[in-house]
Structure formats: C-alpha cells, structure tokens
C-alpha cells in the first residue's frame, strides 16, 4: 500500500518535471546516461562485457561450441541469444524460467545483431552442412535501474567484439578473432504524453512502460524495431523517434568504440 502511494507521488513528480521540459536527473530529453563499457572481464568466457548505463548494469558472456548447422543454412554459424533476469537485479524479478520480458529482451537484442549481420556467420562454417560454430550470447542482468534493453544490446555487441573463437580447444585450427563487421546500436525511448525520453531510468518509468526500441546499423539503416508496452503511438511521434534514434545511435556507437579502444589500450580489457 505504502509503496503504491510512493509510486503515485513519484509519477506525479516525474510528470510535472517533464511537462516543464526537464528530466528528474537533469538530463536532456535526448541524452543518454553515462555509458561505461569494460570488456574481457570473464576470462573463462570466449568474450565478455560489463556495461553500465548510469546505475543499470548488465554483463554479457559469450561461449562458443562446435555444432551442426541448421539444414537451411548449411554454410553458416549459429547465434543463440539467451537472457536471465535474475532476481538479484531487481525487486520485481522472480526466480524461475524466463518470463515474457526476459524473452522479449533476448529476442530484440538478437534481432539487432542478426539483421545488421554484425557477425560474419559464413566465416564460422567449419565443414559445410556438418560442423559450424555456435555462439551463445548470454545476457545476465545485474542491476535494473531502467533500460536494460540498450544496456544489454551494447553489452552483447561489445562482448562479441571481445571474442576469440576457441578453435584450438576444439582442435579445428588456430584461434581467431570473431569476425564482427557491424556495430548495431539500439536506442530505447519512453513515450510520455507528447514527449519522448531516450534511455529512461527506472524512476522515469513510474509514468508507464511505454517504450519503443529502434536499432540501427553503422550505415544508419534501421535493422530492428520493437514497440513495447500497452499504449498507442501516434504516427508523428513515431517518425520523430525514428530519426532521433538513428542519429543518437551514431553517437552511442562512437562512445562504445572509444571505450573499448581505451580499455584495450589500458590493458584493462584482456582478451581471453
């Protein structure tokens, strides 16, 4: 009960600030929280990244195995994306099999990577029709302070960029860098009245979880979209968010790349 009243007050506060053109943490409507990317933090994984979007934290680990290709793509590697919204990350997450939010998160991240052809899957064929590399992308939420979606998408592509294919361990040649050829970036906006706020934090979502995620590739093409939440979106708003998201993605992409390069230079981010 007490909690409900608190939520009411929070919502009113957030709304009144938005209507005066402000966000509760002082950001601009089109401003991301601080982005931090650390790669190579799980030595036992083939690749890994810890991403912080403000207080939101997500870790992604990449494991690779040798497996059979799908019958309709005998010359391509396989990507399997999985998400665990473990109860550690939020008071609202419960132990158990993935719920619809967890499934949606994994599938939207997966689509961004798949449709942008971020990974060159042809180079992950070992023996056509028989043996290909299987990439497991495991999204592990640590702290959900809002917008797990973008944090997970950044962590996933960062972890892939950090991945070494363990060919020696599987006795199929020499280890090599995973061939990553694009950096898809998703931008999630919260729709409130006639406003849209990129990278919403948890407190902002007290006004409702009216979200839209737009993922674009390095050439500014849209590669994935997902309206999420029980609301109606006007066409005008959609076009506005669409253009903003593609522009914003370019900015974020630069930051991610620079952080990864910085990490590599500092030697903090070891390849595994």
């Amino acid at each position, binding site marked *: 009960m007490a909690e409900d009243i608190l939520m009411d007050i929070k919502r009113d506060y957030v709304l009144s600030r938005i209507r005066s053109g402000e966000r509760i943490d002082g950001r601009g409507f089109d401003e991301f929280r601080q982005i931090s990317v650390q790669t190579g933090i799980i030595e036992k994984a083939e690749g890994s990244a810890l991403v912080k979007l403000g207080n939101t934290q997500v870790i992604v680990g990449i494991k690779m195995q040798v497996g059979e290709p799908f019958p*309709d793509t005998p010359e391509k590697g396989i990507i399997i994306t999985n998400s665990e919204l473990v109860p550690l990350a939020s008071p609202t997450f419960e132990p158990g099999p*993935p719920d*619809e*939010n967890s*499934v*949606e998160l*994994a*599938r939207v991240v997966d*689509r961004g990577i*798949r*449709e*942008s052809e971020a990974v060159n899957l042809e180079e992950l064929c070992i023996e056509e029709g028989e043996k290909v590399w299987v990439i497991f992308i495991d999204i592990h939420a640590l702290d959900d302070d809002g917008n797990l979606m973008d944090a997970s998408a950044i962590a996933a592509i960062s972890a892939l960029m950090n991945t070494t294919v363990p060919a020696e361990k599987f006795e199929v040649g020499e280890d090599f860098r995973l061939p990553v050829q694009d950096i898809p970036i998703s931008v999630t906006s919260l729709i409130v009245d006639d406003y849209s706020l990129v990278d919403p934090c948890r407190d902002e979502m007290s006004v409702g979880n009216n979200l*839209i995620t737009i993922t674009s*590739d390095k050439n*500014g*093409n*849209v*590669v*994935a*979209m*997902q*309206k*999420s*939440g*029980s*609301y*109606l*979106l*006007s*066409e005008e708003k*959609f*076009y506005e968010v*669409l*253009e903003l998201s*593609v522009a914003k993605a370019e900015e974020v992409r630069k930051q991610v790349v620079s952080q990864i390069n910085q990490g590599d230079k500092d030697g903090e981010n070891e390849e595994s």
Partner: protein
Amino acid sequence: MQKPKLIVDGKRLDGRGFEELRPIKIEAGVLKRADGSCYLEMGKNKIIAAVYGPREVHPRHLQDPSKAVIRYRYNMAPFSVEERKKPGPDRRSVEISKVSREALEPVIMKELFPRSGIDVFVEVLQADAGTRTACLNAASVALIDAGVAMRGMVTSVAVAKVEGNIVLDPMKEEDNYGEADVPIAFLIRNDRIESIALLQMDGRLTLEEMKKAMELAKKGAMQIYRLQREAIMKKYMKEETEEPEEENEQ
C-alpha cells in the same frame, strides 16, 4: 535452399502487385462455447480466435481492482507448419502474445470491468507468413463479437522489402528471403487510422523506406478494416433473422 526469384515482371510469385493483399475471408461467431469468436483466412493462413469474458479471475490475487486483466495467447497447432511443431509455447509465441496483448490493452475499455478478466485465445491452424497480424485481426473481431467495449478496431498488416521493393502483406517466400519484415497494427476509429498499436521490424531499411512501408501498411489496413466490419455486420444480420428461441438457448 537457393533463394528463388521473388519478383518477375513487376509481379510477385502469386501474381499480386506490390500493393495488393492476399485473399481474405472473415467470419464472426463461429464457436458456440466462446463469448465471441472469429475465423479468418489470409492467404494460406487459417486462424481461429475466441474471447472469454469479462469473467472472474482465478486466483484472486491476479485481479486488478481498477480494471480488467487481459490475457492473449497466440498458439500454433502442431500441424500448422511444414515441420510438426512441438505443442506448447516457445519463445517466439511468448513474444508475439506479449506485443499482441499490448496492442489490444489500450483499445479495450478495461476500466469498465474492474476485477474481471478478458481472455483472447488465438489458434493458428495453418501458418503462412504474417500469422501475428492475421491473429490480431481475428482477435479484434472476436472481441467485438463478444460485446467487449472497444475504443475502435485494431487492424494489422505486414509490409516487407523484397528485392528492393516495398510490398504489402508478404507471403512465406517473401518473408523467408526478403530484406525486411514490418508487422504493424493500427487503431482505426470512425474509418480513420488514429495511431499505432503494434510495431515490430527486422531486416534492413533506410529511413525513407521505413516511411514508405508505413504508408503502404495504412493503405492495406483500411481494406482489411472494411472486411472486419463487414464480418461483424453479417453476424448481426444473421442473428436478427434467426428465430429468437434458438438464441435464448445459447
């Protein structure tokens, strides 16, 4: 599997033009036990939707004191696809159920039915491309057939990019080998598209193409909307001409 040539002489594999829908058939009120129902064909898609409610919600702690709780279950029959599908929900159907429910929730007047539940169950008996949009169209008609108060009609259609062309209502081959797929649903009120209720996309589109896709989707949705209305009208007319006793027995 070799990618087939999908566009020949400006026509699609099944002879359609770029802006043409597949044949659609809609019939309301096809089930006795459900409070509302609809059978829908769209190309080779065969869909049946049922609505139960407003009815009591069990267990009680799932009730919402201020409004109805909506459930939406998208399910594929094991025989609906080329390779038999194992019964039960998979990740794909969980996601489709979520976004479809979220498309209907703001349109259903949930606040009129506090503490109650409205269940929308949709079965894919045969799947071609575009089952999620076909299911939403059927669900919308079934909801109206059940007498659930709605702010308007939810109408859904997909648009695809196929060999560089933006085409309406992709069939299976276009979905498999096309460059992008954009399923959209609209809220339509007073014969006018008011807003977007569902929007997903995967593939690769420029901003311009995306806008073109949206325009094409709107055109297609208006045609489907008219068929949805017709199906409901036909049901009402049929009910009126039926003998009253029969109706009471239901």
